[in-house]
């Protein structure tokens, strides 16, 4: 063996594999893969606590705590429990859903640029929502749609569009590149439809539609949080159970099959779960830009390893959204859409990680 030194000399076991055993259960982990989610959770709780107290009517930390344990005066109770808590709950749930969805899609497509937007979820949901806003009440079709309700129309639009993307991409299995290309094509068509609808709308409707397209948490409450929570209760365990198979899928179809993975089945489950997560998130808060695309990449740079970690991506997604919502509510003018803030908060952080990281930047 003519040993050639690697271009990057390895340090002596920088992140050794550790083993966890509980009864018959065993798995491996690295310290940072545990530390990052724990830290993210801690900061998330702090950010949510701060967010509960801040706003047009500031409430002190102690008063917030009092309200949470069942005391406090009626005004404070109303503001914290009826206005702020449900909105923050929606922010957390949407952030988790988008973060995990992005991590699943990027692992499946083996492409850090992939996100649920590319699978047509966002475009389809936008058609559904904008159709309700613009056509609602003015046409018979619009009345039917309006009766459906905006979130349902967005959910249906997103799922239908994703189904169309799959239908066109499926050839005895899913090819990542094919799926991404078809998704980009259909998303462009969906955008055209949305723009057409906007030209047909009144200026007021167009303004409402624009806020929805940017993604906003304004006026969101328990009505959105509950369905989201139920969906996550089902989808999150499935996502986490997929983790082991995702590690093998990352290698390419041939190697994965050689390792005994039922590739078409594993791919289908991964993509369906990712689409469902994105669709419920988008139907609740609109297509909040950037979270699903960038949070998984931030997460993998923080934890190390070769694929976006699901748990860390979910928690960091929630953190990004709660923090962005706090900024949108307190620093910026009235009802500023949170979708603008997520990009402004998240992008510089990712750029910083890219600039100082040793990791080759394929983004």
């Amino acid at each position: 063996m003519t040993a050639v030194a690697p271009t990057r000399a390895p340090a002596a076991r920088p992140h050794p594999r550790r083993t966890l055993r509980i009864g018959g259960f065993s798995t491996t982990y690295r310290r940072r893969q545990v530390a990052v989610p724990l830290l993210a959770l801690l900061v998330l709780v702090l950010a949510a606590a701060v967010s509960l107290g801040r706003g047009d009517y500031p409430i002190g930390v102690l008063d917030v705590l009092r309200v949470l344990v069942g005391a406090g005066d009626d005004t404070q109770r109303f503001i914290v429990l009826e206005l702020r808590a449900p909105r923050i709950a929606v922010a957390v749930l949407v952030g988790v859903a988008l973060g995990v969805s992005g991590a699943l899609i990027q692992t499946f497509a083996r492409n850090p640029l992939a996100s649920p937007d590319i699978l047509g979820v966002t475009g389809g949901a936008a058609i559904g929502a904008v159709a309700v806003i613009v056509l609602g009440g003015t046409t018979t079709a619009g009345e039917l749609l309006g009766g459906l309700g905006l979130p349902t129309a967005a959910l249906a639009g997103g799922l239908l569009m994703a189904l169309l993307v799959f239908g066109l991409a499926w050839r005895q299995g899913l090819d990542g590149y094919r799926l991404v290309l078809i998704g980009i094509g259909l998303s462009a068509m969906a955008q055209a439809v949305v723009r057409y609808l906007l030209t047909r709308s009144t200026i007021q409707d167009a303004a409402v539609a624009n806020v929805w397209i940017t993604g906003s948490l304004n006026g969101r409450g328990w009505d959105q949080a509950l369905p989201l929570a139920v969906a996550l209760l089902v989808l999150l365990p499935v996502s986490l159970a997929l983790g082991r198979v995702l590690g093998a899928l990352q290698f390419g179809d041939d190697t994965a099959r050689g390792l005994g993975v039922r590739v078409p089945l594993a791919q289908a489950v991964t993509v369906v779960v990712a689409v469902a997560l994105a669709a419920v998130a988008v139907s609740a808060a609109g297509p909040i830009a950037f979270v699903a695309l960038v949070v998984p990449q931030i997460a993998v740079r923080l934890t190390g390893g070769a694929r976006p970690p699901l748990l860390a991506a979910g928690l960091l997604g929630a953190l990004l959204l709660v923090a962005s919502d706090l900024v949108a509510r307190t620093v910026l003018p009235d009802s500023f859409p949170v979708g603008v803030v997520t990009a402004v908060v998240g992008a510089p952080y990712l750029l910083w990680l890219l600039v100082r990281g040793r990791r080759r930047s394929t983004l």
Partner: protein
Amino acid sequence: MTALETSTAAVRLAADGVRLAYGDHVVVHDLDLQLTDGSFTAIVGPNGCGKSTLLRALGRLLRPTAGTVLLDGRAITSTPTKEVAKVLGLLPQTPLAPEGLTVADLVARGRHPHQSWLRQWSSDDEAVVTEALSWTDMAELADSPVDALSGGQRQRAWISMALAQGTDLLLLDEPTTYLDLAHQVDVLELVGRLHTERGRTVVVVLHDLNLAARYAQRLVAMKDGVLVASGTPEEVLTEQLLAEVFELEARVVPDPVTGTPMVVPVRRLR
């Protein structure tokens, strides 16, 4: 088993009238091939002769349009893929490693078919991976990212993963592609040791006839999707066969180092 086997060793992997096609385009025509336990076979042939396609079918990556591939006498396509993965390992031509993956993690992934959701990492796994790393001389590079390795080291890492998978059979598709001659020899020495020291049954698709003759016990020559010749390197590598299969005028002389047949090209025929 369809055919009687004259040798005493059991047939582990067999193609029985296998026809392979991409769409309507038939690449391999009704081919029969039997691979016995503990053998080292090299499949050779000109570009586009269907040798890699045949290897894919032997590794159940491609489903035959007619005929069957039998693994230990059972149709491979109706055997659960995880069961197959415990017996048969394969190394694709240009395997894809995700960015940032370390050698140790790559080799650990070889344990996949032996794990379950509950038992994701046993002490057995740890021992096998450590042993595979040191046996392939990769222990020192265990924490290097795979994408930072040289071509030869990368191929060693993948072979280390195949070793960790612990399969009796190993199929390799052109494992020496893109390597310089020294690393080609290095990789084939390693594969040869897998065969002699670890008793693996090896099937390898190779372009270099001289190296194939050196390391393999048996050569299988293909042309236009048909098996043309099969036997020891001396039986297969004749001047007549080189003219017929490769359209090459060549002399065949004994390799001065090993005595195996060595091809010295003269010119292309036609």
